[in-house]
Each structure stands twice: as structure tokens, then as C-alpha cells.
């Protein structure tokens, strides 16, 4: 094949499969430019590290286990209840998770006010920022793993549209999202070419485009060869 033919091939391939290479380079560049911990929103939450006071009155673990023989995990921890930091037991079993007051072992039900308060304690942004609290029982939004349901959703009215998700039973921060994460997720979708669920990396068209782009690269390589090959005749402009 002569150089002209290669060039026509290169143009056709660029039109049919090369455009995906542009998509890959833009989406890849976004993922490379922004630090992954920033994308994860680690800067949006404070680390809470007040220890459990030594003189806290609590019922012994054995009582919790007597009450809940099926429990697979019992955790003594702290949580904001009614606006103050309290020591609680978090009891996990196959049937679900529950919070108990550490002293009386009475069950605790977190409400909208509690979650709003807990969210404020985690949030590193401006204290005046408005926020909405909503409860999600089934239908998880696309940005949330549905295995985490049910959850409380807290949307902050700030610039990157920060959203915190808290577990319904224990009020634990399970996920945080902001617009840079959402953009990352959008680019990830473009990168793996799964426009539906954004998880499947094994589609036939992803493989097909990868292989076709290798051929596209070869056609470009041929053009490079024709440009730089040693010539017997004196150089003339092509």
C-alpha cells in the first residue's frame, strides 16, 4: 500500500473507532488529574476521636448477649443522641442492626433531628450551610450501593453539592458524595463504555473498540514510517 492509501485508512479508522480514543483520553485525564482521596471526599469529613470516658456507666457485654443471643457483632461506641454524645451498644445480627443505650439497654431510634445533628458533627464545611435530611428505604439513587439501604440522606447546599449517607439504624456515615465524585463516575462510565450500570467492564464492544484502536494505531505507525523512512532520492515535499 502506498502512503496515500494508508492515510485514507487512518482517517476512516479515526472516524469509526478513533473518536473513542478521544473519549478515553479525556476521561482518563480527569481521573489522573484529581487525587483519588479528594474524589472520595475525604476532605469533607472530620475525624471524631473523643474516647469513651473511663467512668461511663454501662451494662456488661454479657447482658447484651443474653438479650441478643443471635448477635454476630456487639460494639460499644459513641453516637450523638438528642444532641449530645452518648455511649451506646451497636448490636448486629442477621436480622439487622440496632442501637441500645449502654446503661439501660433500651433501644434507640434515630430521627431526622438526630441525623441532622450527626451530619453537622462530621461536616468540615461552613456551619451555616443549609442541609436537607431525607429517608431512603428502597430505590437507591444511582450513586449509592443498594446493599447499604435503608439510609438517611443529608444534602448540603454547598458548592460541590455534598451529600452524606448514614445507616438508618446506627447513624454511621456509610458514603459521601460530591460533584467531583459524580463527574468521576460519569467519566468512569465513558471509560468502560457501560452506559447503563457503570460496572460491567466485559462488554463485547469494549473489547472490539480496544482491538480496533490497536489497528488504528498500526495505521498511524505506518504513516510515521513513511514520513521518517530513509529515502534514496533527494527529499521532495510530499
Amino acid at each position, binding site marked *: 500500500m502506498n502512503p496515500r492509501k494508508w492515510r485514507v485508512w487512518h*482517517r476512516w479508522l479515526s472516524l469509526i473507532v478513533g473518536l473513542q480514543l478521544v473519549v478515553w*483520553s479525556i476521561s482518563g*485525564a480527569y481521573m489522573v488529574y484529581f487525587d483519588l482521596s479528594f474524589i472520595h471526599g475525604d476532605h469533607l469529613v472530620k475525624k471524631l476521636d473523643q*474516647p469513651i470516658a473511663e467512668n461511663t456507666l454501662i451494662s456488661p457485654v454479657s447482658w447484651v448477649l443474653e438479650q441478643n443471643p443471635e448477635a*454476630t457483632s456487639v*460494639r460499644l461506641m459513641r453516637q450523638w443522641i438528642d444532641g449530645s454524645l452518648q455511649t451506646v451498644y451497636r448490636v448486629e445480627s442477621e436480622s439487622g442492626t440496632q442501637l441500645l443505650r449502654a446503661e439501660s439497654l433500651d433501644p434507640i431510634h434515630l430521627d431526622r433531628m438526630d441525623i441532622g445533628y450527626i451530619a453537622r458533627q462530621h461536616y468540615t464545611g461552613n456551619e451555616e450551610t443549609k442541609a436537607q435530611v431525607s429517608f431512603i428505604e428502597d430505590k437507591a439513587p444511582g450513586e449509592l450501593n443498594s446493599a447499604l439501604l435503608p439510609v438517611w440522606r443529608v444534602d448540603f447546599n454547598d458548592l460541590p453539592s455534598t451529600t452524606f449517607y448514614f445507616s438508618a439504624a446506627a447513624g454511621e456515615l456509610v458514603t459521601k458524595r460530591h460533584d467531583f465524585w459524580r463527574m468521576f463516575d460519569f467519566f468512569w462510565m465513558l471509560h468502560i463504555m457501560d452506559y447503563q450500570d457503570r*460496572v460491567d*467492564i466485559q462488554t463485547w464492544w*469494549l473489547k472490539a473498540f480496544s482491538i480496533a484502536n490497536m489497528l488504528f494505531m498500526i495505521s498511524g505507525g505506518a504513516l510515521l514510517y513513511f514520513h521518517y523512512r530513509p529515502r534514496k532520492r533527494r527529499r521532495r515535499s510530499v
Partner: protein
Amino acid sequence: MRFMRKLHRWLSLIICIQVLIWLVSGLYFSWVGHQSLAAHDYFQPVPKKAIGSVFYPENALTERFDSIESLEIRSVAGTAQYVVTTTDTNKHYVNALTGEDWKTSVPMAAALARQSYNGPGVVEEVRAVTGSDEIVGWHKAGFKVTFSDDIATRAYIDAASGEVVDHRNSRWWLSDWMFRLHFMDYSGERDFNSLLNIVAATAALWFSLSGLILLSRSLKRRQLF
């Protein structure tokens, strides 16, 4: 346009090998899929069990450790275990029957490995190790439990906690190198925000964009035939 052509050609010389590497490794990821890439072909999370009896009281622990952030009790291989997290984010593991620091025995390591495994093999060997070249960031004492299956699955168990660190198998080496090449992080830490990668991504971005500009020019001039 002459400049665009020149830019496209020069960038192609610099970046074409890496673009080819991205395409080949990307194709490999697509071929193999998430589960095998993580060496989780025969992996399952260890099933959670009811805690069972506890003899060592929690108030002994609150006296033993300062600045406790949380205190968990759970079952590890049929024995109750305390996990004490202190505010410096350190974790301490205590046997809830005896009150001694948690120890993982060889039979226990084998049992834990089996619970994390759903393949056709049986445990072939349990070896004490300290960290592993195959697992970045884990340098502690533990066990390597090897299974007799087609891909030589091995489960790594952390001795201090009795946790299954992860699985590895004979395909791991190739998958890991594909990640190193795709992310341009040859240390194995899979950090794709390195300066090297930023420079390469920028070059690739301008390589493809200059190509796009040249293509639109060709389309306008009807130079497709």
C-alpha cells in the same frame, strides 16, 4: 494546520508505545473481569457467626487500654474476640475467653482460609509468613494457606487479628503487572495520580485532541477518499 500536523506527529512519537500499553492492558481487564483481577475467583467473605460465650469482662479492657474509641466483640473461627480501637486508630485484639492477646494457631488459620474459599480445592499447605510480596501494605506476621486447585489459590491470614487479608493465585502476577502498566505505577501501589501519569495523560490528551482537529479539517475538505 501545519502546526497541528506537526504536534500530532511529534506527540505520537513520544506517547504511541504507552497508548498501545493502555489499549493492551485495558483489553486484558475487559477480558478477565473484576473478580479474577482481584484474585477473587474462589473468594467469599467469611460468614458471620453468633458470638457465643464471653468470659473476660469488658470493664477489664477499659482499665487495660487508655483512650478507647470503640470496643467490639465478634466471633473469629468459633471463638469470641474483642477488637479494641484506640483514638490513635490502633487496634488491639483480645481473646474474650481468656483475656490474653489474640493468637491465631495453624489449624485456625486453615479453618479461616477454608471459610473464605468456595473453590474445588482442599488446603495443601499452611506456612507462617511475615507479610508478602504479593500484598502491598501488609507486613505483619501471618499465614499463607495454599489450596490444591487449578490456579494455586492462596489465602493470607493475619495472625494478630485472625482476619483474612486477601486471596492470590497464579494469574495474579499478570493482572498486577497489567495494573502497573495501565496506571504507570511500577511500585504496585496502584496510585494513578503520580506526576509521571499526569504528564503521560496530558500528552495523550493533546495527541488525541490534535487528531480530532485534523479529522474535522479533513471532513470539511472531504478528504476521506
